[in-house]
């Protein structure tokens, strides 16, 4: 049986629309205009035990809303979800003892106390057996290399060290399911890398199920076998990271190196010229034309070296997002126009 089953899950918020200006503010006291915003509009998703899934999507796409729904912070407008057989928004203690949510931008440790005190509190809240608690804590602090920092007040820790402590606090009760909302936000490359390494190792060792949202493609590439792209509240893609390029990019990039004194000014008749730094150049062409363009290029130019590549993943994803953004913008304009009329 799947550990997470989501069916047709939807959530819309009512948002108070404030118009500009003082007069509008005064009018707003009596007569408030609300707008329904569909944050998540019908998601179907099944996650098996032991999977490490990444949610990708532009800001406001519904990633965090989905994690909040699954951790029971919010109730959906419609649809169902079950995690380990529990309905999250019923908030049963039995469920709450078996998952954890870590938000990169929120902290749950006691600011003025050493992290180990917060850990003790978690031991009590989650009813962790004392011996097991000691073992788990020692293992986690050792893995993340923060044992020496346990006695320092949390406020004196660096952002990266604090994030590690947050992760430990969330994992002390050995949750079966872990939701991570941008766990590496604002961290430097080294700290990001450490946390990635830790998550990967621990996930494989304990076979826990992790759902992660992140803006760092490196996080995703390093950790997740499965990627779910959410945009405008619906799932646009569900599959492997490499598959994204196949699905969303109909283009290939040809990089070539020409002999001296070769012509660079006519390259644009083959496709979109991405860059020209003689003797090298890059051209973007539709995938279907790869063979034809290659043949023509070789015939017409003194080619010294040539290669055909997929466009970089980040570019493809940015492209997917920007298409979405564009469509969303037009939708907003239509909405605005409709309201005026």
């Amino acid at each position, binding site marked *: 049986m799947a550990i997470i089953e989501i069916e047709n899950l939807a959530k819309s918020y009512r948002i108070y629309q404030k118009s500009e200006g003082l007069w509008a503010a005064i009018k707003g006291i009596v007569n408030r205009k609300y707008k329904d915003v569909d944050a998540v509009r019908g998601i179907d998703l099944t996650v098996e035990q032991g999977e490490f899934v990444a949610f990708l999507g532009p800001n406001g796409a519904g990633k965090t809303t989905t994690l909040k729904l699954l951790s029971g*912070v*919010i109730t959906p407008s419609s649809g169902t979800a079950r995690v380990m057989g529990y309905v999250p928004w019923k908030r049963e203690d039995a469920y709450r003892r078996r998952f954890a949510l870590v938000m990169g931008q929120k902290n749950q440790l006691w600011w003025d*106390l050493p992290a180990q005190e917060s850990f003790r509190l978690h031991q009590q809240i989650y009813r962790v057996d004392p011996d097991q608690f000691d073992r788990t804590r020692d293992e986690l602090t050792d893995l993340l290399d923060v044992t020496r920092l346990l006695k320092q007040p949390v406020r004196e820790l660096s952002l990266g060290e604090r994030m590690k402590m947050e992760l430990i606090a969330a994992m002390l009760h050995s949750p079966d399911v872990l939701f991570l909302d941008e766990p590496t936000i604002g961290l430097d490359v080294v700290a990001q890398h450490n946390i990635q390494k830790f998550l990967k190792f621990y996930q494989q060792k304990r076979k826990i199920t992790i759902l992660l949202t992140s803006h760092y493609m490196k996080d995703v590439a390093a950790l997740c076998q499965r990627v779910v792209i959410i945009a405008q509240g619906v799932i646009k893609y569900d599959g492997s990271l490499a598959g994204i390029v196949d699905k969303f990019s109909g283009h290939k990039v040809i990089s070539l190196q020409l002999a001296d004194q070769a012509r660079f000014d006519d390259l644009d008749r083959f496709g979109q010229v991405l860059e020209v730094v003689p003797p090298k150049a890059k051209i973007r062409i539709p995938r279907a034309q790869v063979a034809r363009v290659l043949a023509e290029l070789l015939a017409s130019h003194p080619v010294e070296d040539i290669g055909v590549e997929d466009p970089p993943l980040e570019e493809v994803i940015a492209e997917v997002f920007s298409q979405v953004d564009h469509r969303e913008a037009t939708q907003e304009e239509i909405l605005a126009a409709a309201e005026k009329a």
Partner: protein
Amino acid sequence: MLAGARTWFMIVRISLEERLAYRGDFALGTLMRFLPIVTQIFLWYAIFTAQGGADRPLFGYTYTEMVAYFLMTMVARAFSSMPGLASGIARQIREGEVKKFLIQPIDMLNYLLATRVAHKGAYYTIAIGPFVLVFYLCRDYFATGFPPWPTFLAFLASLVLGFLLGFFMEASIGLIGFWFLEISSLLFVYMLFSFFLSGHMFPLTMLPEPWQTIVVYSPFQYLAFFPAAVFLQKVQGAELVRGLVMEVFWVVLFYVSARMLYRRGVNRYSGFGG
């Protein structure tokens, strides 16, 4: 049950530690609470002298009784006042910290009550010294002396109930933050009522009718006036019993109100957007 008690104890222990993290601020804050009482004593001394001397009773209180009364309201308020409780709850709601209580298997009200017990505990530990000193210096003001044991027990009960009442009243106001987000004006109104009706500015027996009747039935008198009046044996016998029963009633009422507000608030919060 046992596990629950251990969790509770851990929360108390940790918030005690947190409280003591800033020693200087804590010590200063604790000692400064004694300042207002000094100004009040001087103020009433001036009023009594202007009215014809310290021995002439004013509204049933002589000057010495008045000083004793204020000292006792100070003790009562040390139990019933909840600095930062309502505003803290509203802030947690506004800034989304309240999520923690939806995600983790812990109840917000129990948690806040435990931290509050810890804060009070820390406060008394430090304040007991100055309290003893002040009461020793002012011992002559207590003309009736130490009350008999039954009265003293009733006094202790009224203090504990006052603590609970203060907690659940302020918690209820804070929880309104689920609907209003900003509750400072509401809190201001509450403080205003508390200021006049709790009796920490003047003994409530001074008020004319119909305020007398209103005050007797209001929950505010339990925050300061009632415990002081019990200790000074101004409230006795059937009146004392009735007062305590009423106090229990108010505690239960505000407990239920806080519970309901919390449940509805959480439902609204999770429906609204978290």
